[in-house]
C-alpha cells in the first residue's frame, strides 16, 4: 500500500512536470513540422514569457492568471514581429544557417535578460489558493501539481480539438504532411506559419511561467532546458500534438522517477534512451504514418 502511494505520487509529480514540458514544446513541434525550421530559440521565448509573468506578479502585483494571459499575449506579439522581420528570411536557408541564427538569438536573449533584470533566479510566488496540499482520497498531494495537471489536460484537449476539428487545424496538418500540395491548393502557408509561430511562442511563454516554480527562472533558462524541449519534440514527432503530449509525459515521469531513485545516473539514462529511440524511430516514437 505504501509502495502504491509512493508510485502514485511519483507519477503525479512526473505528469505535472510532463504537462509543463508539453505546453512549452508543442509550439516548437508544430513550427518545426510546418516549415522544417530548426528553432533553437524556442526556449528563449519560454524564458521571455516566464520573466513577464513572474516580474509582473512580483513588481506590479498582477494576479497569477492575468499574468499568464499577459505573458502569452506579449510573447506572441514579440514572436510575431521576430517571425515577420527575421525568421521569414531564413525559411529557404540551410539548417546550419537556421541553427546559427537561433543560437545567436539565444545568446542575445541571455545577455539582454542578464543586463536588464540581473543574473539571479526569479522566484515565482504562488497565490495562496494554489499553495499547500490537497486531499485526493488516497493521498495528500501538492495543490499546484494537481493544478498543472488540470491546466495541461485542458490545453491538450483544446489543442487536439483545434487541430482535428477546425479549418486552420486541418490546414496545419495538411502542410505538415505535404507542404507543396497544400500551397498549390491555394492555402497561404506563410500566413499559417506566422499564426502558428506566434501561438506556439505564446504557449511556450505559458509553460515558462507555469514551470518557473520548479524549473527556476534565470537567464540561462533559454539554454539549460533546450535539450529537454528538443528531446520531447524529436521523440514525439514533428507537427504531432498527441505525439508531443505522450513524449512529454514519458520524459517527465522518467526524469522525475530517475532523479528520485538514481539521483546520479538519471540524466545519462535519458540521453541514452533518446539516442536509442531516435535510432529505432527517426521520425519520432509517436509519428504514426510515415510522411
Amino acid at each position, binding site marked *: 500500500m505504501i509502495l502504491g502511494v509512493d508510485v502514485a505520487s511519483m507519477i503525479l509529480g512526473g505528469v505535472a512536470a510532463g504537462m509543463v514540458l508539453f505546453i512549452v514544446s508543442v509550439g516548437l513541434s508544430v513550427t*518545426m513540422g510546418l516549415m*522544417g525550421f*530548426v528553432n533553437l530559440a524556442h526556449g528563449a521565448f519560454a524564458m521571455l514569457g516566464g520573466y513577464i509573468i513572474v516580474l509582473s506578479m512580483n513588481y506590479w502585483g498582477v494576479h497569477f492568471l492575468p499574468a499568464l494571459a499577459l505573458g502569452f499575449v506579449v510573447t506572441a506579439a514579440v514572436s510575431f514581429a521576430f517571425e515577420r522581420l*527575421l525568421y521569414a*528570411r*531564413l525559411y529557404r*536557408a540551410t*539548417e*546550419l*544557417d*537556421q*541553427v*546559427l*541564427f537561433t*543560437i*545567436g*538569438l*539565444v*545568446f*542575445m*536573449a*541571455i*545577455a*539582454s535578460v*542578464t*543586463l536588464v533584470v540581473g543574473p539571479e533566479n526569479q522566484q515565482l510566488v504562488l497565490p495562496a489558493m494554489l499553495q499547500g496540499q490537497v486531499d485526493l482520497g488516497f493521498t495528500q498531494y501538492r495543490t499546484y501539481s494537481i493544478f498543472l495537471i488540470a491546466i495541461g489536460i485542458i490545453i491538450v484537449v483544446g489543442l487536439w480539438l483545434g487541430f482535428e476539428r477546425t479549418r486552420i487545424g486541418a490546414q496545419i496538418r495538411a502542410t505538415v504532411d505535404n507542404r507543396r500540395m497544400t500551397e498549390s491548393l491555394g492555402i497561404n502557408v506563410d500566413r499559417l506559419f506566422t499564426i502558428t509561430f506566434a501561438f506556439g511562442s505564446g504557449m511556450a511563454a505559458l509553460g515558462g511561467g507555469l514551470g518557473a516554480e520548479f524549473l527556476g527562472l534565470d537567464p540561462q533558462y533559454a*539554454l539549460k532546458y533546450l*535539450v529537454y524541449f*528538443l*528531446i520531447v519534440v*524529436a521523440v514525439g514527432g*514533428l507537427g504531432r500534438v498527441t505525439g508531443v503530449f505522450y513524449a512529454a509525459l514519458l520524459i517527465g515521469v522518467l526524469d522525475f522517477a530517475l532523479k528520485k531513485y538514481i539521483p*546520479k*545516473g538519471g*540524466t*545519462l539514462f535519458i*540521453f*541514452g534512451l*533518446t*539516442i536509442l529511440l*531516435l*535510432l529505432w524511430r*527517426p*521520425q519520432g516514437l509517436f509519428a504514426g504514418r510515415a510522411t
Partner: protein
Amino acid sequence: MIVAAIKPTEHLAALAFAGRHRPRVWEPAPWIFAIAFYFAFPNYLGFGTELLVTILFALSLDLVLGYAGIITLGHAAFFGAGAYTVGMLAYHGIWNEPISSLMLAAIVAALVGLGSGLVLLRTQGLTLLMLTLCTMALLEEAANLGHEYTGGFDGLASLPIPPLLGLFEFNPLYPRTQYLYVLIVLFIAFLFVRTLIYSPFGQSLAGIRENTLRMHAVGSPVRARLITCYTISAAIAGIAGGLWAQANAYVNLTTLSLDRAAMVLIALILGGYGRIYGGFVGAVAYMALAHFLAKLYPTGWQLGLGLLLVVIALFARNGILGIGEALLRRIRAKHMPQ
C-alpha cells in the same frame, strides 16, 4: 583522342580545376605569422597555444561540416575523448609520453567517431542534430559520473607530462614548448587535410554535400564515405583535445561541453566553412575578440556574439573569407573588362 586535341589554355575553368590543389603564393603567410607571433609576443604564448588548438579543432570540424555537409552540434565529444585519453592515462600513471599519448588520443577519438558514426549517420536533419547533441551530453554525463577515473566535475589537474622527446620541458608559465609543439602538429594535420580535400575522396565528399541523391546514382558509396570522413575528423579533433590536455596539464568537463562545441562551430562559421583557411581566420577573429572583450564586458560580449551570429546567418553566410572572396571578385571584374 578528341580530349587530347583540346588545348588546356582554351578552357580556363578546366585549367583552374586541374591546378587548384597547387600551393598559392600567399599560402606560407599564416605559418610565417605563427612563427613571428612566437618571437613577437613571448608573453602571449599561452593564448597563442589555445588559439592553435582551436584552429586544429576547427579544421577537423570543417572536414565534417564544410566538406561533407554533416551538421553536428556535438563535435566536442571527440575533443573531450582525446583530452580524457591523454589525461586519464597520464594521471593514473599508465602512459604519458607526449607523442604516443597523442596518437592514442587520436585512436580513441577515431573509435568513438567510428562507433557513433556507424549508427548516427543513418539519419539526417533534426534527428542527426539531436543525436550528435545527445551523444556528447552522454559522454559528458559519463565523465561527470565516473569521478574515480575522470575526476568528475573537478577534472584531473597537474597531469605529469614528461619533456617532449625527453628534451623540451613543458613549462606552464612559459609555454614555449607547447606553442611550437602544437604548431608543428597543426602543420602536419593541415597538410594531411589539404591533401585529403583535393583528392578524389575529398571531391566525392563535396559531391555528397551538394547532391546526395546524385552521388548514390553515380554509384558512390555514400555512407562509407561519410563514415570515413567522420572518423578521420574525430581523430583530428581527438588530437586537438589531447594537445589541449598536454598544454594545460589538466582536463575537465568543459572539453566535452556544448559551450566548446558551439564555440568551435561559431569560430569556423565566422571564418567561412568549406574553405580550408576558414578555421584559421575564424579562430583568430573569435579568440582575439573573446580574449580581450570577454574579460572586460562578459555580458556585452555574449550580446555581441549573438548579434554577430544573427548577422552572419542573415547576410554573410560564407563568413569573413566569403566577404573577402566577394570583394576580390568585384575588383577583378572591374579590372578585366569582358
